[in-house]
């Protein structure tokens, strides 16, 4: 069974009725890493939001199955608890809420959803420290309010920490590499690679082939004008780096 199967997905903005996704088809098998590249405004983030169940978008056609579940039937928090994780392009600040508290609430929500015991403060602390260490994040950052006053790179690293703690089955990373310095990119990529396994699927949205040097994808897709225009292996990313998106945007116009 495929981990994620998207069939002819069309989605519009609820308020304006403008169609952004114009028929997406994509299948991710367990263990696979897919990369999506494409020009600004082509609908990459929109796809991630629609998968995660954000309000404000209307699916007008098509279907999405996640394992044996109809993903579109689930609320956003249910999708998360089922194992869909989105590392945000722009992580959101939550003033006054310590990162630890937030993450513990999140983990315990998931555990409760699956009928498991909640972790107590000590067990949780141990778990999170261990994960944070490999991402070279100190206690002080975990105590600070979620994303408040974090640098761009720190925010992205924090997303990966959350991912590592929550252990999702589908990881969607929206431009996690943007804003990272070279060392941080390496740390984050190591973090992501550590999570790769035969059950977990990943969808990396990126503008830079450089990330794909660190995280080797099984497939690369080019998205433009709300559609996947072409799919291939890693070499497609190299080709795009050279030629740009002219071929695809031309087609779309």
């Amino acid at each position, binding site marked *: 069974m495929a981990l994620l199967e998207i069939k002819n997905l069309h989605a519009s903005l609820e308020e304006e009725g403008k169609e952004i996704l114009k028929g997406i088809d994509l299948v991710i098998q367990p263990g696979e890493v897919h990369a999506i590249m494409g020009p600004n405004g082509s609908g990459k983030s929109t796809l991630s939001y629609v998968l*995660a*169940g*954000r*309000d*404000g978008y209307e699916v007008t056609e098509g279907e999405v199955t996640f394992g044996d579940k109809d993903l579109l039937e689930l*609320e*956003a*928090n249910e999708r*998360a*608890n089922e194992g869909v*994780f*989105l590392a*945000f392009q722009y*992580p*959101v*600040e*939550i*003033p*006054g*809420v310590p990162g630890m*508290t*937030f*993450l513990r*609430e*999140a983990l315990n*929500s*998931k555990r409760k*959803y699956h009928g498991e015991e909640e972790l107590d403060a000590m067990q949780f602390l141990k778990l999170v420290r261990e994960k944070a260490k490999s991402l070279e994040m100190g206690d002080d950052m975990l105590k600070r*309010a979620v994303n408040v006053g974090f640098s761009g790179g720190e925010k992205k690293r924090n997303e990966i920490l*959350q991912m590592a703690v*929550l252990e999702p089955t589908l990881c969607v990373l929206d431009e996690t590499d943007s804003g990272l310095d070279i060392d941080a990119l390496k740390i984050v990529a190591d973090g992501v690679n550590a999570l790769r396994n035969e059950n977990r699927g990943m969808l990396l949205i990126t503008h830079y082939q450089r990330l794909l040097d660190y995280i080797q994808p099984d497939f690369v897709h080019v998205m433009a004008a709300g559609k996947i225009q072409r799919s291939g292996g890693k070499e497609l990313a190299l080709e795009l780096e050279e030629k740009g998106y002219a071929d695809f945007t031309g087609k779309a116009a």
Partner: protein
Amino acid sequence: MAATVETIEQVEQLGTEKYKYGFVTDIESEMAPKGLSEEVIRFISAKKEEPEWMLEWRLKAYEHFKTMEEPDWAKVEYTPIDLSDIYYYAAPKVKEKLNSLDEVDPELLRTYEKLGIPLKEQEILAGVVAVDAVFDSVSVATTYRKKLAEYGVIFCSISEAIKEHPELVKKYLGSVVPYSDNYFATLNCAVFTDGSFVYIPKGVRCPMELSTYFRINAENTGQFERTLIIAEEGSYVSYLEGCTAPQRDENQLHAAVVELVAMKEAEIKYSTVQNWYPGDETGAGGIYNFVTKRGACRGDSSKISWTQVETGSAVTWKYPSCILQGDNSVGEFYSVAITNNAQQADTGTKMVHIGKNTKSTIISKGISAGKADNTYRGLVKVLPGAEGARNYTQCDSLLIGDQCGAHTVPYIESRNPSARIEHEATTSKISEDQLFYCAQRGLSEEDSVSIIVNGFCKEVMKELPMEFAVEAQKLIGISLEGSVG
């Protein structure tokens, strides 16, 4: 001038003389007749076996009350209270006895459970069992009393204090909130039925949070509660009033008065969690909470801090204040006021700087949801002698939905050029981005709102005594249930 005063006194005396013999009070009755009259006040005083000076004080307040009008400056609207339709004294009612928790309103039980209140306490709160049946309340009380007595701390009901410690009560009662202060306070002076009295002797650090005791022994003190706390030189006390569990009461009007007195280098920390019944979605049946709370920092380097979490009541009207008389004295006000549905709150504080280098801090967090209205009203007043006075005020409002309102009304009066007054105010909304971020991490909408709002209130919540902080956090989430989506 002196002659005038004399005249007033004489006239007053004539007045009381005349009434003294005019009425016969039936002390045997359990209940005073409905309505407010001198007869009723005499009845209350007689019932409580009060000394003459106490009765006189009550009557003086009542005389003054008759000349006053109900204030209408607060930004709250409510059906006027018919003072003639209230019973001012009724012997404490025995709660209707239920056989088990199964007979309790399931809505109430659900809330207790969410608050994490232990089963035994749930049974007491819901009236299934009397306090004595669960805790041996007499012995608990005695244990506490014994321990407090070792330190010379007096902690008893105000009625008891009037009888046992008349010199203290006489000296301090009405010394912070005079009988003529304001409409609701004056009413309270005339008809108060009970409340707490605390006296901490010189140099003593009260060995326990006075909340523990209070919570176990909380009795229905009625609608006109009166509290007096005195901290002598160099002493410290932390007092917690209220309860996170929702409280229902047949009495619609609550008009309490709290007076605090801190002498030289003394510190009083007064925390409140108020969760009176707010009424249904339209506010019907909810409690009107009109409270006068004021603390006097009488001595140099004394400190009074008010922390409040207000989530209940249909209408709240409340301004805990500090009179900073002593040099270097400190006043603090930390407040979270949540209004949902049709609730209205007009709350804030007054900081009056009189002594030199006095310092005040005001942190107010107002949260409104539904169709609720939330107003912060604050006064910072610096008198000419308050050389080097400093105030920092921060008022943050958080709106949930677009039908509610938040208002900030700061008044600043500075009559000393060396004073430094800073005021910051913000208004924000829970953003759709934040809600989605939380949902994407698996949190339900209720949990998301709760965690975001608790984050917003953090600076205030951290001031609460540990034992209540956790419950208060949960309470915030519960008060806002159903406010989004």
